[in-house]
């Protein structure tokens, strides 16, 4: 059956890739939890992921908050519901846009560079060299990155939440004529702990996914410059898709009645 063959082959390849990724994830997690740890490397990755992503995440957040206020205003003005704008801005930013956009930006910035760095180390035999020097690449290269991703992205998103709300505040007060004190009071009254917490949980998961994809594709890259290029692309694309799909499932977990 010449039609069934390619379907079967694709399915097998898919299963193989899923299995390999699952094993990689379990192995990485087990190495995150067992000594030896490399605090120096963990701190370096935290600075790389957390501190150096601040500008790009901050810019994304402030413009998102601003455009959110502007767009909501054009929509809500028709129903004289302008007063709901602080509510819409703060809930959208903390629940959805903060974590998702920060995750996507970090996927582009950090995931790509991780895949390229580890991929280059793989094709120039530096990963093998680690092994021969009795140092486990999972502990030395991958665990510090996963730990840093898991912890830093929630902090980044917390900052993004504040900057995003601030962006909405600027546009509403400077352009749309809101009273600053009323806007802030409305924001504070509407916001709930669960909104922020769900966003931070998402951020932790996204941080883990981004670094996992960067490490996985880099670690398994083959065949010189082209292989590293493909690894970088795959890392960013797969991380982005995983972020969007996990975003749905986590939302359902938190808010589905």
């Amino acid at each position: 059956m010449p039609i069934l063959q390619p379907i079967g082959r694709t399915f097998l390849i898919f299963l193989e890739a899923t299995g390999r990724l699952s094993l990689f994830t379990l192995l990485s997690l087990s190495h995150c939890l067992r000594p030896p740890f490399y605090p120096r490397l963990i701190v370096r990755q935290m600075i790389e992921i957390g501190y150096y992503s601040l500008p790009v995440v901050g810019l994304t957040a402030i413009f998102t908050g601003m455009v959110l206020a502007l767009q909501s205003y054009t929509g809500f003005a028709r129903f004289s519901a302008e007063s709901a704008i602080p509510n819409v801005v703060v809930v959208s930013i903390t629940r959805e846009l903060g974590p998702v956009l920060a995750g996507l930006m970090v996927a582009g910035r950090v995931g790509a560079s991780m895949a390229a760095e580890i991929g280059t180390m793989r094709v120039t035999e530096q990963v093998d060299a680690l092994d021969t020097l009795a140092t486990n690449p999972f502990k030395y290269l991958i665990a510090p990155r996963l730990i840093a991703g898991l912890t830093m992205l929630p902090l980044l998103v917390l900052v993004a939440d504040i900057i995003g709300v601030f962006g909405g505040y600027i546009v509403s007060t400077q352009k749309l004529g809101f009273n600053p004190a009323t806007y802030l009071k409305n924001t504070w009254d509407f916001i709930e702990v669960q909104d922020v917490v769900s966003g931070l949980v998402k951020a932790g998961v996204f941080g883990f996914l981004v670094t996992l994809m960067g490490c996985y594709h880099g670690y398994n890259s083959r065949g010189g410059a082209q292989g590293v290029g493909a690894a970088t692309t795959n890392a960013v694309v797969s991380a982005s898709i995983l972020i969007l799909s996990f975003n749905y499932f986590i939302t359902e977990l938190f808010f589905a009645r």
Partner: protein
Amino acid sequence: MNDSSHTYDASEKAPAGVRLEEPKSTPKIAIRGLTKVFGDKVVLDGVDLDIQPGESMLVIGGSGSGKSVLLKCILGLLHPDGGSIKVDGEEVVGLYGSDLDRVRRKFGMLFQNAALFDSLPVWENVAFGLIQGQRMDRGKAREIALEKLAAVGLGPDVGDLTPAELSGGMRKRVGLARAIATEPEIIFFDEPTTGLDPIMGDVIDRLIVDCVKGLGATALSITHDMASARRISDRIAMLYKGKIIWVGETKGIDHSDNPYVDQFINGRAEGPIQMQVRDL
């Protein structure tokens, strides 16, 4: 599947076509029936090789004959599909985790392109096995690293450079310093002179011989550079079509009476070895 029970007794007759010498003592590395398959390509097809303590063994063979795969199997970087590898009499096929690390501490390796960590300065590259593998204090490790750099003819100022600032010959020297920094019992050299000019090649060969003899280490090298092969080895084994087809003293390689070896060391296109050139 790992067929680790598949071992030969040392006194057992070697497979036909292989001239194994009578072992004087427990071999440092004993390889029996090693096979490795990639897809449907059989790269190693039952390799048998003994390496005695303190000797410098060299494996020659054409490009793609599986020399690197053989090294990587011994180091545990690749998992063989069958056969046995014993280091100091201990089976290493199937070892993992801390047991594998313990065996790996016996090894040092000079990679083909040195494989220096470009995120670390030169001295930390050399000291890597001491700091990470042996948990040595950084200050003390740095001192040892600078000593080892001096042993390969590099001054202490080189220690603070990054690997990207080094020339090819210097990278090889740093790689050698890293391989000997932990004073391993066994050192592997993967094409030590590839990519170097003939003079630098000779310099590196001399350093290799000095370092190996200085440590009293056992060496296993792979190369297809015959000039280098004659300089650094005591014995030579030839790998062809996944099997060791000849083993003998380096001195006697010109009188091997083996047409394959003759063709290889004289670099002739005509002979029993046919290069696979496929039409595209």
